[in-house]
């Protein structure tokens, strides 16, 4: 077998033709044009193969196979309501006030949603108002082949726009559910989040689905934070065991803007979370943190990039991975400090804990510095549980599973211990801990 730079997926073109009539916004000529052109680009390029550096740890052969077998059907009936409600109840954090926006199998679900409706906040749904997405679809922040595929096939999405000096009093929960009916489906969603100068907002996005179906969640989000804007984002990835989960978030920060991104990856068979950021104004700050967990056939990838384009910016990255037997992960984090980005402060830390000899963690931190007056650090480690710590705990009466649980929790605690941002922080921290425990208690390998 030869490794190709790109994988061809001729079936995708046929599927596109089949799906076309069912897309949102078929009456919009400009949109059909964008879809068709994006599709042509995707077909010309194909999926990136393992020889493409960015994809060396995630072999997209499985995705090509998934797409070849995609049994897309235009669903005549909606998803099963009872199942949807069950999933919703698990994903929704009722103890956090604020609006909630629900997508089911890639489409907006008005029945379960209560969209934001506040002064200074504009909120649009793609399937209801494609026009709002025109600019972001016409001029995407990135034009990779996967991005083109998403533009061509986009099912639904949301656009959040906050006016200058407006603080959203409460966070928005965005919930993406996949039901059993999602088997073999690609769910291509998009988001655009735009904060004008001095605006503040918090978005909590959860992804959840059952273990049975194999579906592909493919979500692309663009974030623009103008001068002094503050954006806080949480992702809880709780997908079903066979799901393919891919999210890309592209952020651009102007002067003194702040972006906090917290990321918890627990589910899916294959997951890749891309967080691509440009610090395009002085004194902008970015804080990326995450924890990922993998076992039995699970693969968790975190892919970050931070472009320090302007002086006096600060970036902080803190990621912790826990891998048990059969689990695999890759952290690829790149920081690029441009020539005139003096006084840059960039910190990157990735630590991985292997609970089994049959687990694998890859770490590839990269630092490209073209300025000379900067403070940059990065560290990546892969290790096992400390035997002395384990014995200390066990000598005090904790059984092996409890001792491991405590140590694993401690290992990831740094990610959410001093979590920034507002009154619901404790609830979100609790959510992180609770979900982490749930993962651990299912089977801490011995």
């Amino acid at each position, binding site marked *: 077998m030869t490794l190709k730079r790109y994988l061809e997926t001729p079936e995708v073109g046929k599927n596109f033709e089949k799906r076309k009539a069912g897309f949102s916004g078929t009456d919009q000529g400009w949109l059909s044009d964008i879809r068709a052109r994006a599709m042509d680009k995707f077909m010309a390029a194909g999926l990136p193969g393992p020889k493409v550096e960015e994809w060396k740890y995630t072999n997209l052969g499985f995705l090509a196979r998934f797409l070849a077998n995609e049994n897309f059907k235009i669903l005549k009936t909606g998803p099963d309501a009872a199942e949807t409600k069950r999933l919703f109840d698990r994903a929704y954090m009722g103890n956090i006030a604020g609006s909630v926006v629900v997508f089911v199998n890639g489409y907006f679900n008005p029945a379960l949603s209560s969209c934001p409706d506040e002064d200074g906040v504009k909120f649009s749904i793609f399937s209801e108002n494609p026009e709002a997405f025109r600019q972001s679809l016409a001029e995407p922040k990135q034009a990779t082949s996967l991005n083109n595929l998403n533009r061509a096939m986009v099912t639904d999405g949301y656009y959040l726009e906050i006016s200058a000096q407006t603080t959203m009093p409460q966070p928005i929960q965005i919930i993406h559910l996949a039901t059993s009916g999602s088997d073999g489906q690609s769910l291509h969603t998009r988001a655009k989040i735009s904060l004008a100068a001095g605006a503040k907002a918090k978005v909590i996005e959860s992804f959840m689905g059952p273990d049975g179906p194999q579906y592909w969640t493919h979500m692309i989000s663009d974030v623009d934070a103008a001068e002094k804007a503050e954006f806080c984002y949480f992702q809880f990835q709780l997908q079903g065991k066979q799901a393919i989960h891919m999210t890309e978030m592209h952020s651009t920060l102007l002067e003194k803007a702040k972006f906090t991104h917290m990321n918890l990856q627990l589910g899916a068979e294959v997951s890749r979370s891309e967080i691509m950021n440009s610090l395009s104004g002085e004194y902008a700050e970015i804080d990326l943190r995450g924890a990922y967990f993998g076992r039995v056939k699970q693969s968790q990838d975190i892919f970050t990039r931070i472009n320090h384009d302007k002086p006096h910016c600060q970036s902080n990255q803190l990621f912790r991975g826990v891998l048990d037997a059969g689990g695999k992960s890759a952290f690829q984090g790149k920081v690029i400090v441009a020539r005139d980005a003096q006084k840059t402060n960039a910190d990157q830390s990735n630590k991985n804990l292997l609970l089994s000899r049959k687990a694998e963690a890859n770490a590839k931190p990269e630092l490209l510095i073209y300025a000379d007056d900067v403070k940059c650090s990065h560290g990546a480690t892969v290790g096992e549980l*400390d*035997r*002395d*710590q384990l*014995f*200390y*705990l*066990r*000598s*005090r*009466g*904790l*059984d*092996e599973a*409890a*001792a491991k649980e*405590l*140590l694993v*929790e*401690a*290992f990831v*605690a*740094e990610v959410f*211990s001093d979590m920034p941002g507002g009154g619901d922080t404790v609830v979100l921290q609790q959510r992180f801990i609770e979900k982490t425990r749930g993962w651990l208690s299912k089977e801490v390998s011995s």
Partner: protein
Amino acid sequence: MLEIKNLRVTVGGKEILKGLNLTINDGEVHAIMGPNGAGKSTLSYAICGKDGYEVIEGSVLYNGKDLLSMDPNERAGEGLFLGFQYPVEIPGVSNMNFLRTALNSQRRYQGAPEVKAVDFLKLIRAKAKELDVDPEMLKRDVNVGFSGGEKKRNEMVQMAVLDPSMAILDETDSGLDIDALRIVADGINRLRGQDKSILLITHYQRLLDYVVPDFVHVLADGRIVKTGTKDLALQLEAKGYAGLGIAENAA
């Protein structure tokens, strides 16, 4: 009652304990002294079940039960406590959370109900006060950033809260100034007052001024080579191991 018979233990393939015999009856305090590297810590680890301390011969019975077939946490549940020579730092785990989990694990093992959060708080505050430990320290991560003396006192807080029937204290006195030594000794004597058994491993006889042992043993080259009373510790202090015909660094 702890009964150790002909205990042989290897560490990394090397025999450290070479047929050790020791019996500690309920309510007795025994002290073990011996040169560096004699195998004192090895003995404590073997009794408590640390991985890598392989028992190749002999038996250890506690109240008639075979300790060697038990997991370390089961041994703790049976009432055993090890005060570590070098208490381990555990970043990310608070003392409080750790100790409550430990206490409740032991109580579950013993078939007793778990301790309620409020009762636990009262208990730990009282014990910290007895041992002159700042309650704020208990909120911090286990032993992280503690001085040597604070770590040892923290071991004593744990012992007081867990209330074992048999405590093995491995050089709990080293690194303590005279005031701290007195506080720790008081803690040990409180346990002793309840008729619990204690095995003190120490280098210096000064602890034994405060906690007067019923028996003193000298451990050298993997065996108990001499047994006596407190006088033996005084003799050792005066003459050294060589003066009593015991080779230093025998191991």
